[in-house]
């Protein structure tokens, strides 16, 4: 399991001793937390291209409210709340303008099948593409925001379930359950679309 320095809370969710965000190190702390915050944003938004917009906006909000941050507590967890808030607001705005399906709750919500997905480079990918990556991404769109976020934080940031729980404000068991169910769903979808081992048009597993 990869070690994530600074950007993770203590296993019990308690304040991260020794981390104090003073006037001159907001940028440094934000940079250390950036990957995790971005992954939370992309987990909520389901859209890599919009995720950086969200972390930018969250940074502005965090910066303006920095006097509310208690030195000695976990900076990443503090900012994670803001990122979630901004991302959900963003989703609501998109929803209001009819650009996105219902996504009012950061919980078990399962979005309808989106017609297409925007990637980090801004390109639009249509559903049903033949590639493995596309199918993974399409399958991931079927799960809720919380499950998607838990999976990304576990798989890509190597966070412990207790750390994910602390960042997202959920019990550790729920975080684990989200990850396990999502993995299983992805495997099922990929098995269904790619068939048994080695049967996916030369795209062998």
């Amino acid at each position, binding site marked *: 399991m990869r070690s994530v320095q600074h950007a993770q809370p203590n296993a019990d969710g308690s304040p991260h001793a020794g981390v104090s965000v003073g006037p001159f190190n907001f940028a440094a702390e934000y940079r250390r937390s950036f990957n995790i915050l971005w992954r939370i944003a992309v987990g909520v938004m389901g859209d890599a291209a919009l995720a*950086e917009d969200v972390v*930018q906006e969250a*940074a502005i909000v965090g*910066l303006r409210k*920095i*006097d509310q941050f208690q030195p000695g507590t976990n900076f990443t967890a503090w900012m994670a709340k803001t990122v979630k808030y901004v991302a959900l607001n963003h989703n609501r705005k998109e929803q209001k303008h009819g650009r996105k399906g219902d996504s009012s709750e950061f919980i078990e919500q399962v979005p309808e099948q989106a017609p297409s997905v925007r990637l980090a480079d801004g390109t639009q990918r249509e559903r049903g593409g033949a590639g493995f990556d596309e199918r993974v991404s399409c399958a991931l769109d079927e799960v809720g925001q919380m499950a998607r976020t838990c999976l990304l934080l576990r*798989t*890509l940031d190597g966070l412990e379930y207790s750390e994910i729980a602390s960042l997202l404000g959920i019990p550790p068991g729920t975080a684990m359950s989200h990850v396990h169910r999502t993995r299983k769903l*992805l495997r099922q979808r990929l098995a269904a679309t790619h068939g048994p081992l080695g049967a996916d048009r030369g795209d062998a597993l």
Partner: protein
Amino acid sequence: MTHHIKLQDGTVVDAIDAYLDGLMTASQIVEFEKTLGQQEELRGELKRQQRIDESLAKQFAPPDGALTRAVIAQAAADTSDGGNGSGTFRLFARGFVVAAALAMAAVGVWRIADFYTADEGPSASGVIPAWSSETTLADAYRVAEKNEFKPHWVCKDDAEFSDVFAKSVNQPLLLAQSSGVVPLGLGYAHVITERTLMLLVRVDGRGVIVFVDKLNYDPGLTVPEDVDLRVFRRELGRAVLYEVTPLDGERVLDAFYDPSQK
């Protein structure tokens, strides 16, 4: 076929998850790996999961965050100049701007405009405040004009220029050279969204601004008839571009192109 195992705390989980998560005891690992050797289907499942994880890592690699760092620095500068914060915060923000500038200079991503090191703060050094209240094309132009069309930053090369647009409006853009058109640099204004990009240029010595944002946010903008400015609009890929100019015709819009289409 799904394999489950019982963890030490009594929880029953999928064996593949327990294996990948390091939740198995030593004896459970030995047992599981033995089963793996015997069952092709289980081996396939595990390989599929590993490949899914690789795919996720590829698809969800975070950006370098350079744009975010620039935005943070700019917001700090803007806040410190806005007079809204407490004295402590304003002092903090000024210090932060310098720190952020140093951090960004260290990674060599942006050529930071001189406001980052200006003792008097950003506005005093002539930088157009971004993240301000929503404004019109004409008002944004007047603010820029008052500040002598000084940009927030200048890109070091075409790749960086294109990348800024790709990240901000999901559409890489480049500007072809045209006679009489001198690009000055980029900035932000709260026109279409809070982060409408501005390209500030001189055309035959006159200040001209091209506002660029995501096409799907475009409300359709104009300037009042009594304003001595003209507006020209163009859609390019996923971007919408507005040229606001005191000249009679558009001179910059046509010079924009999508580098991926060349």
